């Protein structure tokens, strides 16, 4: 528990200093914890767990776009759980519930709890279709076809810089669209 959180903090520090592999590992490592917490929160609010993956993706996008608000001298877990809690409350409220999310939802997870992805997320995928063509193509190439930035640049005859810009804008507008819905 403590150890895992220290590991997250270390990975996030590496990520901030430019290590994308560390960032990838960090996101993979927090996802099951977020998923379990989202399920617990939904269950507590009397909602079916099949929206949990949408909430997880929403949290991951917020973590990504707001990571500059994390103080590299502070532990990562409290920051992460604050974002997650905020997103979970938001998701439940959007579904017409006034809710109180228990802080404990994020404070501990039972390791044996099944937290694999079951019902796939649909909201991000749906909003992806509404993006400008260039952003959608780049995002799809990198996310779905797992192409690198370099390969994506070659495929669409773009510069790598332009691919990076389209990728970031795509992620930012996905998040904006999710918020508006």
């Amino acid at each position, binding site marked *: 528990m403590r150890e895992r959180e220290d590991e997250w903090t270390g990975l996030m520090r590496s990520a901030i200093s430019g290590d994308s592999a560390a960032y990838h590992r960090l996101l993979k490592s927090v996802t099951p914890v977020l998923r379990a917490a989202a399920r617990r929160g939904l269950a507590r609010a009397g909602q079916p767990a099949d929206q949990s993956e949408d909430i997880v993706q929403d949290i991951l996008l917020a973590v990504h776009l707001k990571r*500059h608000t994390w103080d590299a001298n502070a532990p990562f877990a*409290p*920051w992460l759980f604050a974002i997650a809690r905020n997103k979970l409350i938001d998701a439940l409220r959007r579904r017409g519930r006034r809710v109180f999310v228990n802080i404990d939802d994020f404070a501990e997870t039972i390791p044996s709890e099944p937290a694999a992805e079951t019902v796939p997320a649909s909201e991000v995928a749906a909003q992806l279709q509404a993006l400008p063509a260039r952003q959608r193509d780049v995002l799809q190439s990198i996310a779905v076809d797992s192409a690198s930035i370099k390969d994506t640049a070659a495929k669409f005859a773009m510069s790598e810089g332009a691919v990076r810009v389209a990728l970031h804008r795509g992620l930012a507008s996905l998040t904006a669209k999710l918020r508006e819905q």
Partner: protein
Amino acid sequence: MDTDQLIRSLAADNSHRARPVGFVLMLALLAAAPVSVAMFFAELGVRPDVMTAMRNPFFDLKFAVTLALAISAIAVSLHLSRPEASLRGFGWMLLVPAGLLVAGISGEMMTPQRLPMMTRLMGRNSMVCLTAIPAMSLPLLAAALFGLRHGAPTRPAVAGAIAGLVSAGLAATLYASHCSDDSPLFVATWYTIATALVAAIGALAGSRMLRF
């Protein structure tokens, strides 16, 4: 898009670096300040006897109070732009301008005054004060909210109210150089009401605009 795919795209975007919230907030306030300053010179202007007024410690105190409010509110708002932050440990900063006012009021009580207390409190400019400070605040409030949107405040109404204090503190600093009422009692009454009004607008706007 499944979650693993989303994570892949986020990791690919790791090289993107956002500017710190403080930088964006300062830039936005600097961009909005000329609008408020223009409003000030178009409608009010500096009071004509400013050179003699500067020798009055109660005139100077107004700036100490309003600037203390603006600076402490900026510090608190930057703190609140982090999702895990609460007011605890930082809220006391907002007591600094209040403390200065209390000290000013006690100072005034201890020195002989020409005018009775109620006359000093009511002053001559209360209505101008109540309209000018909120009006000059609005461009700055919009800027402060824009800056804080770049952060991740998990209590958007509170963060919006603090953005209101930032803008009211700056607008009141401008207004203080126009107003001929220097009594700390006047400041404590009318500046406070005007500031509370702006904070309420900020809370309302913040609860919509600052959600992320």
